[in-house]
């Protein structure tokens, strides 16, 4: 893996956290978007974890991490990208997913306090899946409510399931996380897709894309 963050303490904290877990090898830790691109070309990691804003370099100011991530995905489609954001604004999430959700995870930085969550996202993007931080989903749902979005109101249970779906979890994963039976989860998932007038799909990354597309409109 390669870790990119302009803040030294964060960069080193994430690196040590991942290395100590014994489940990841951090090949490089860098501080700008340009260095990240260079490190990926040299080290060929499976996954990249990057900050959004890393001043300096040739990318758009304020979006250096996101722009570098898109370049990396274009050059090396097999490399998964976890974007760690200090912003809960939806703007950055849409910026990350603007070309599709495959192989992208968008997590708030708080997640560095939850090693399992972080590793889960790393594994998901390594396999081409996608993850959206539940807090961001919550924000998107709230924004939709403010805008007076169409469709029926989701029940609290369905909202829980939606958040877990956005995390890139399968029905089985959701069932375990919410302590529900798999058939109950399936029922909720179907109900959500019906209410949101979306196409259901067993592919978790497609489900994330569908949810995101719905929330973004």
């Amino acid at each position, binding site marked *: 893996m390669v870790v990119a963050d302009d803040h030294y303490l964060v960069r080193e904290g994430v690196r040590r956290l991942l290395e100590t877990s014994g489940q990841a090898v951090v090949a490089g830790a860098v501080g700008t978007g340009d260095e990240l691109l260079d490190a990926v070309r040299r080290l060929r990691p499976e996954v990249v974890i990057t900050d959004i804003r890393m001043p300096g370099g040739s990318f758009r100011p304020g979006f250096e991490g996101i722009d570098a991530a898109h370049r990396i995905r274009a050059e090396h489609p097999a490399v998964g990208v976890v974007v760690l954001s200090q912003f809960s604004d939806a703007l950055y999430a849409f910026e990350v997913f603007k070309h599709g959700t495959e192989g992208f995870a968008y997590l708030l930085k708080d997640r560095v*306090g939850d090693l399992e969550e972080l590793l889960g996202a790393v594994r998901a993007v390594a396999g081409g899946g996608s993850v959206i931080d539940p807090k961001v989903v919550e924000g998107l749902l709230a924004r939709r409510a403010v805008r007076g979005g169409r469709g029926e109101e989701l029940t609290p249970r369905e909202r829980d399931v939606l958040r877990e779906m956005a995390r890139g979890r399968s029905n089985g994963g959701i069932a375990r996380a919410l302590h529900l039976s798999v058939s109950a989860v399936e029922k909720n998932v179907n109900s959500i897709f019906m209410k949101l007038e979306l196409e259901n799909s067993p592919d978790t990354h497609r489900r994330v894309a569908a949810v995101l597309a719905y929330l973004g409109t």
Partner: protein
Amino acid sequence: MISPTSARFLAASMAAVAVLGAAAGAAMETGFPMPPGQWAFTALALLLPALGWLVADRRPGNLYGWLLLATADCLGLGALGVGLLIVSDSGRPVPVTVLGVLLASLFVPFYGLSWVFVPLFFPDGRLPSRRWRVAAWTAGVAITMHWLGVLLASDEVYVISPIGGPLGITGPGELVVAGLGGLGQLATFAVALVVLGSLVARTRRSTGAERRQLRWMTAGLAGTLGGFLLTSVFLIVDSAALWLGLVTLLGAMPAAIAAAVFRHNLLDIRVGIRGSRFFLVFDLRPTVDELLSELAPGLEEAEPGEQLGRLAGAVRTALDARWAAVTLADGTRVVAGSEEGAAELTVPAGQGRIACGPKGAGRFTGDDRRLLRALAVPVGLAIQSAGLAARLVNAQEAERRRIERNIHDGVQQEIVALIAGLELARATGGDSAMLALLRDQARQTLDDLRELAAGIHPSVLSQGGLAEALEERCSRLPVASTVHVDPEVRVRRFPDEVEGAVYFTVSEAVANALKHARASALDVRLALAGGRLQVEVADDGAGFDPATAVRRGLVALADRMAALGGGLDVVSGEGKGTRVRAWVPVHD
């Protein structure tokens, strides 16, 4: 230059003379009741003085109105003279006959003026070009020759006075006089034809509004010359043709001028109804006072941008321009109307300028320019306050962005690092050394947060007041610094915005002294004198040339001071240290 009052009196008198002369002359010629023809003549003769009076009264600076009045007076007095000659037709030369002849001879300058000068000086009382001075002089001489010829001729004057010219010369001089008169008349007519020719040429060359105006004048002159030929040269006695000739002779010119003036707003005299009493006015242009008193109440409350919009609208209305634009020093433009055609009139207004597009009709006059210059004063002030407001808003925005960045990239990141460290400690069962490290990180974060909050608004300023906040600020500096505060100021509190502005001015000046000037000693003085709270920050650093270097932070603070009615100045020079002085008015 005569005073406006006497100009108006003179204009009214000249118009009255023309009207009364024509009416009295017509009445004397036929006696009462007048036949319809005399009524028609009188009515036609009223047109010219009315028009001349209007123009001279509303635009006394324009020669054209006076020219029309003089022409009308020649006509009116000439008609009076004819009337006198007929009334006093006793077969003997009496003084009244002499007066009659003198007055009747004014028909000569009437024709001369209306054929040559009225069309030539159309519309603004100036010659089309300097070359026309020759024609004007020639016409002047020719008219005088013709006039003398008529006055000094010994034969009958206009076939009216059977006794012949009372001033007539007999003997060999008679022939000279006759030749002089005839030559003068011929030359006048010739110049008139040249003027007509040039009018035709100018009409064909011109386009748009100018063409329409010139067309009227060309038609008017052609009509009047044609009328003269009909009545005088061909000596047509057929009454219908005579009628036609008389009507065109007397009516064509005034009709043409009236059309040009009112229909095409040529002399910028608009006709309209003002007020609830249907009071007909011939000049709807608002005066500067009217405009300003109309604008003032709304302007006070309007936002700077809206102020500029209203002022641009007022300029456009006042000058009857197709569009008017107010441009700020930074290039921002506020346009009233749709911007078509290039700017024809531009004046500076404060730090910006006003530009006006083409007039709705006609050309910009001296009055327009005066009006625009008068409007430039309030526009200049509005531009200044708009610029100030924009800079204040920008400075505030920049400050908010700076704070946001400091939070997101500073404190927030430190907390993220802390969380990562805690998670690491949890996952590995962290030892005491690791926990101590995390505690120190947390303390550092707290310090940074405190610093950040102080940068937004130091709590010591709101709690302890200006003196204490300045002392606190300077006590944390790495160089020797002193703070002098007047005892009176120490115990007093000022409005939040005043204390904030003064505090951040000192803060910025101190930061500059350390960062740019590498000062080793600082002196801050806070004093209250003459209703002003003044602060001075002096350093012994490298100094700079205020003429070439710009301290952006200081510009923002100067704006902040200006918004409070105060000011800021900087005295500095290479190697001479820097002295920043800021003041704000404070009220008891």
